[in-house]
């Protein structure tokens, strides 16, 4: 029975986070794209970009609402589902948690102002300035909350006395060794995924072939700007992923070893791609890239990589995280490839970057990017099992003892199903009832009015 509450606690938290991360990613990334589009609109004096910003913002609010309420849920669930953990770790991670709320507060205030002041200022640029605090607020809340997660991977900034923390140094705990690599990877993937999402929408609209004339131009502009931004962050994302791998090799070798099915400590370790584990726990059907894991871990093809044999059996994460790791990396590479291809094709005059195949690939890239985020988080979180605070507290010691947790799981499952469904329904309705064609028709009139 004891085990059951722990398992359900884990499932409940995984479900809440898995659902929240979709909206959190949009919440961090999309404001940057809105801001960029509005800025281009002002600089080029092109109403298409301004309309992009407006329409994105309109849809964004709906997702923010779900992000806010699920964020509130996870904030409270930390204490409700993991009371022992918060009692202990709360002493050390309160500061970043608190700063996260500040950043979010800041974002919420300016988002409210931004949405309702499109036409209230004399100069258009004044309204654009309001987007900056939203981008910063979203970015910083990601930074702060990521430091909390980083702390759980590499707890630092305290000493341990009789089972409780002493000599707490909040700053050191916040900027622990896992923080930098995690922050840059989380931010770059959030911007990449959001750009990819909006690119996929533009690709979808173009594929429907209903878009003609100005509407087609509008969607093509949307596609170009989003794919360009996605390319930049896809490239950066590969780089930050590499930094993360090198961090793991140094500070959390068991996580990297589990991802790579790397059992024996050796020099010149192979990178293992795909495959499965047979009954004797041996990797089968894998593609081996000789010495590449050593390079990934330490930037040297002959360096030594620590294997799982070095750790006690009960402290090893489950080996299925390999699949998560592979899927995340594969999608990351694919996103980089497809955005690069689009940009190359668009540079060559004879080729048409808006061909069916390319558009189709961009369309599936949107959902794939979100899947990569989920796989990445599952890898990161399951990869530090059995610890909730690596080296200090196991997940089992941290969970609530309440017998009602099972009921709560189903209550939240119901909630997320309702929220997820309604969110999609409302977004579809919002854009179906007011297609871009209608708004584009109204455009010239508005512009003339403005000129008078």
């Amino acid at each position, binding site marked *: 029975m004891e085990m059951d509450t722990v398992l359900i606690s884990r499932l409940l938290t995984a479900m809440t986070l898995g659902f929240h991360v979709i909206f959190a990613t949009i919440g961090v990334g999309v404001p940057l794209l809105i801001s960029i589009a509005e800025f281009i609109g002002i600089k080029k004096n092109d109403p298409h970009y301004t309309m992009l910003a407006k329409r994105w913002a*309109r849809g964004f*609010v*709906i997702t*923010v*609402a*779900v992000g*806010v*309420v699920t*964020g*509130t*849920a996870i*904030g*409270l*669930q*930390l*204490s409700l*589902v993991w*009371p022992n953990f*918060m*009692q202990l770790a*709360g*002493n050390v991670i*309160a*500061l970043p*948690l*608190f*700063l*996260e*709320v*500040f950043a*979010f*507060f*800041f974002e*919420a*205030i300016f*988002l*409210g*102002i931004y*949405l*309702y002041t499109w*036409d209230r200022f004399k100069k258009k640029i004044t309204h654009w300035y309001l987007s900056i605090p939203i981008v910063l607020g979203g970015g910083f809340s990601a930074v702060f909350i990521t430091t909390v997660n980083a702390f759980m991977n590499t707890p630092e900034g305290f000493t341990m006395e009789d089972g409780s923390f*002493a000599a*707490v140094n*909040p*700053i050191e705990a916040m900027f622990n060794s896992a923080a930098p690599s995690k922050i840059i990877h989380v931010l770059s993937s959030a911007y990449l995924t959001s750009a990819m999402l909006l690119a996929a929408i533009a690709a979808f609209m173009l594929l429907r072939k209903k878009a003609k004339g100005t509407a087609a131009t509008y969607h093509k502009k949307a596609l170009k700007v989003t794919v360009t931004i996605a390319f930049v962050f896809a490239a950066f994302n590969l780089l930050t992923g590499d930094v993360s791998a090198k961090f793991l090799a140094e500070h959390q070798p068991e996580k990297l070893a589990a991802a790579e099915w790397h059992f024996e400590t050796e020099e010149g370790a192979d990178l293992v791609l795909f495959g499965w584990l047979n009954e004797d726990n041996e990797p089968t059907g894998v593609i081996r890239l000789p010495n590449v894991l050593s390079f990934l871990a330490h930037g040297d093809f002959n360096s030594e990589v620590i294997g799982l044999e070095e750790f006690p059996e009960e402290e090893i994460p489950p080996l299925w995280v390999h699949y998560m790791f592979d899927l995340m990396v594969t999608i990351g590479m694919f996103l980089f490839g497809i955005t690069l291809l689009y940009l190359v094709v668009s540079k060559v005059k004879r080729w048409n970057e808006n061909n069916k195949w390319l558009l189709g690939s961009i369309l599936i890239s949107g959902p794939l990017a979100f899947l990569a985020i989920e796989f990445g988080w599952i890898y990161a979180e399951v990869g530090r099992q059995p610890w909730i605070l690596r080296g200090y507290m196991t997940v089992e010691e941290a969970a*609530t*003892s*309440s017998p*009602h*947790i099972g009921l*709560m799981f189903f*209550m*939240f499952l119901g*909630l997320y199903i309702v*929220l997820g469904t*309604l969110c999609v329904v*409302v*977004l579809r*309705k*919002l854009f179906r009832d007011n297609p871009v064609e209608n708004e584009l028709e109204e455009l010239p009139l508005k512009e003339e009015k403005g000129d008078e």
Partner: protein
Amino acid sequence: MSYEIVGLAVLWIFLYGYLIVASVDFGAGFFAYYAKITKKDHIINKLIARYLSPVWEVTNVFFVFFFVGIVGFFPDTAYYYGSALLVPASIAIVLLAIRGSFYAFENYGSKQSNVYMFLYGATGLLIPASLSIALTLSEGGFIVEENGVVSLQYWELFTSPLSWSIVGLSIVSVLFISSTFLTFYAARANDQPALKLVRGYALFWSTPTIIAALTSFIFLSQHNERHFGNMMDLWWMLGLSVGFFMIAMWLLYQERGYGLAFISVMLQFFFAFFAYGIGHYPYILDPYITIADGATHESMGLALIVAFIAGLFLLIPSLALIFKLFLFDADYVKGKK
């Protein structure tokens, strides 16, 4: 003054802030629905939406701010309240989630749906009721720790006159605060029909509010004598609270000074809320957590206070800006912008 008292004082101010802004929001949801079923929605719904749309998210953050703050300053609260409140707090989360997201769905997405309106109105009353349970629990006697397992005594809670009187008080206060605010807002918008309607609500809800406050006070004296005694020592704060209530009522009857009336209501609740909070000293959760023992390490406490102050430098101007644009900008309030 020690850092834990400073921390708690700031947190209490934030909780008070939440009490006011959330009451306006929760009550408005109820009134919007009530107006709809009594076919008066055309009178006040625009007014309500104009105020709520830009600020609903801000309201929510006040709450997050408080609970993250209290867990940060007093990690033991996470253990006791977290363990005991799994079910009631989870229900509150679900209600908040329904409310927040449905508000956005309704106002930014699809058009007028009766179901959304109903849920928005109903959750507006259920959320304060479910959140007020935490206040009841702090009085002691409802949370028991045995062999390292913390559990909530549901039977005691549901049969306690104190818990029901606090639930009642929270609901009627929400309606009273909200209707006085809407009266002020309608007066600013110079919207006479709306003003007449919401002023009626305000006058109506004043009586239950003061009765519920008295009842809760009496039941508190039976449940927790120490707390009651402490509050009696702060008789002047309670007196000020009643005084401001009377000023508010007088202004509402006189049909003038609605801004002042709302400020009086804010002060009425400010003094009552702080007398209640100060009277709670030295306990946060009677008898398990005291302010002195439950506090986090000094270094973290100081870091949090520094973060508070730095954060307030950012927040106060931003809040001032949003209020200036949507509350004190006469043209916006009147719907011209």
